[in-house]
């Protein structure tokens, strides 16, 4: 270890910055999200929409599945990346009403990597693939919408009909779903 006492020089208050062009620095979260966004490798079923190109922390993901129960629909998710990213996961909500065992009417999404299994090595891309997978393989084991999960377990045909009805817009089990056809 070096002896750090160059420190003995007197330091002055409010010393003007010795370097020109000094300014607010980008945060670690910003450094990381820039990388995540620049290297987003989206499957062809997904697109992103940045309302403000200068704000990489707030954006939408649009998923149009090309197979499975949900292939006719178009689903929008909002992403909010906080200042503690990637220590904490982004906040993701589903903005489209969807009849799905793992998504509730308030847009909460039950995906393990969004909460209990989040790790800083995961990226925005991991979440995109996780969400896409939810539409290909809805998981009735850990439901958020219990009714939908029960139908999926007991009667797959009825489940498929319900999904289609909801995507086209209409009532399923007393709940009205807005149309979200592709």
């Amino acid at each position, binding site marked *: 270890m*070096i002896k750090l006492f160059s420190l003995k020089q007197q*330091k002055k208050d409010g010393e003007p910055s010795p370097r020109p062009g000094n300014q607010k*620095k980008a945060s*670690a979260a910003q450094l990381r999200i820039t990388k995540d*966004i*620049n290297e987003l490798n989206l499957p062809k079923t997904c697109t992103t929409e940045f309302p403000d190109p200068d704000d*990489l922390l707030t954006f939408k993901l649009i998923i149009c599945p090309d197979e499975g129960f949900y292939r006719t629909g178009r689903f929008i998710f909002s992403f909010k990346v906080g200042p503690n990213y990637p220590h904490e996961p982004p906040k993701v909500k589903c903005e489209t009403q969807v009849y799905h065992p793992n998504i509730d009417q308030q847009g*909460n999404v039950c995906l393990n990597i969004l909460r209990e299994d989040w790790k800083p090595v995961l990226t925005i891309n991991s979440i995109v693939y996780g969400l896409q997978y939810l539409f290909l393989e809805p998981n009735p084991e850990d439901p958020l919408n219990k009714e939908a999960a029960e139908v999926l377990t007991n009667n797959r045909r009825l489940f498929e009909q319900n999904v289609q009805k909801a995507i086209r817009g209409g009532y399923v089990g007393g709940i009205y779903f807005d149309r979200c056809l592709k």
Partner: protein
Amino acid sequence: MSEFQESNQKRWSHLRKVLERPGPFSHPEFEPSSEILDFIMSSCKLLVIGAGGLGCELLKDLALLGFKNIHVIDMDTIDLSNLNRQFLFRHKDIGSSKAEIAASFINKKIPGCQVIPHFSKIQDFDENFYRQFHIIVCGLDSIVARRWINGMLVSMLNYDDGVLDQQSVIPMVDGGTEGFKGNARVILPGMSACVECTLDLYPPQVNYPLCTIANTPRLPEHCIEYVKLILWPQENPFNVPLDGDDTQHIAWIYEKSMERSLQFNIPGITYRLVQGVVKHIIPAVASTNAVIAGICATEVFKIATSCCVPMNNYMVFNDVDGIYTYTYEAEKKEDCLVCSQTPQILEIKDPNKMKLRQLLELLAESAAYQMKTPGLTTVIDGRNKTLYMATIKSIEERTRDNLNKSLVELGLRDGQDILVADVTSPTTLIIKLKYVIDDVEMK
């Protein structure tokens, strides 16, 4: 010798024994002298971040070690629940600024000590403020705040031809506690592991699976999280976001959590537990704070005086069963987002003529970079700005016009940091623009 000088001599006689003569454990380059005590008392300037459990202890310890110029920052006010361990505060101080009360207490109690309080957030100050300190000590309870000050100190480093200028290093001593456990560490920004290098060491926040909370609660915490995450946004009882410090809000959550726990036959909901879960309260043990703050203050003293070799560099402490401590060297992370790179200088001949398109071509073609699809962002007047990003359609469309603007037209100044992300590098690179003024004509 005047009476004052004499009493002063006696008052600090123990410190002088350490600072004015060598010992078997001294730093190999330690040169005992009476100047060191003078340095501590008259020139050395410290910053204590946080005036809570650790902060009160730190201020007391540092003042008693002879430091006289101490600034303290804390954005919080005093709460009744602080009084059991934050001993610079009294009942009458509830509601006042922690920094201000702590500073005035120390200044009154320890003659000659001058603590200057700042009732604000660390983010309210810029690098000119932080540059005035010799050493920064943190007693924080937030990872965001640690990362912020760490990033600030790393960004203040100067490099000459890629070699770190040690004069620009401000050592940071960081303490943290949780119940009977704690840690203390010494960070020499740019030289040893920084907060970001070891970010994985922080335990992740406890998050319960959403489906468990929604359908199969087993713990009282599950019931509270249900009310907080699902019921609150649904019913929006006060038409405002949830505020953990508002007793009405906590009372509502308590009542609803109770209802849910009865429904699922789960015992254990208490008002305190509700408060703890909503506010993520971590239990604080006064003696743990005292131990960790003591270690941090000692490290500050060692760094400031060079009397002993500072800790290298991370100590864990646990006294749940006996006392266990272990000190090891946390290593710098090679691809640390914050401290692994020295800003790379890119010389620009004519920023008025050079277009962003040409800068991108340079990054793709130059032998040193050979980038594929670089995305460029920067910070202008404190705001993030995306210069160009080809990989995202909605961003590309709205930043395409920037390609034909010159660097000056884009508002980029001499010394500007450009953040460059590309598949060819594991982290975002920071490239510093250096405008080379061609002064041949002026001669």
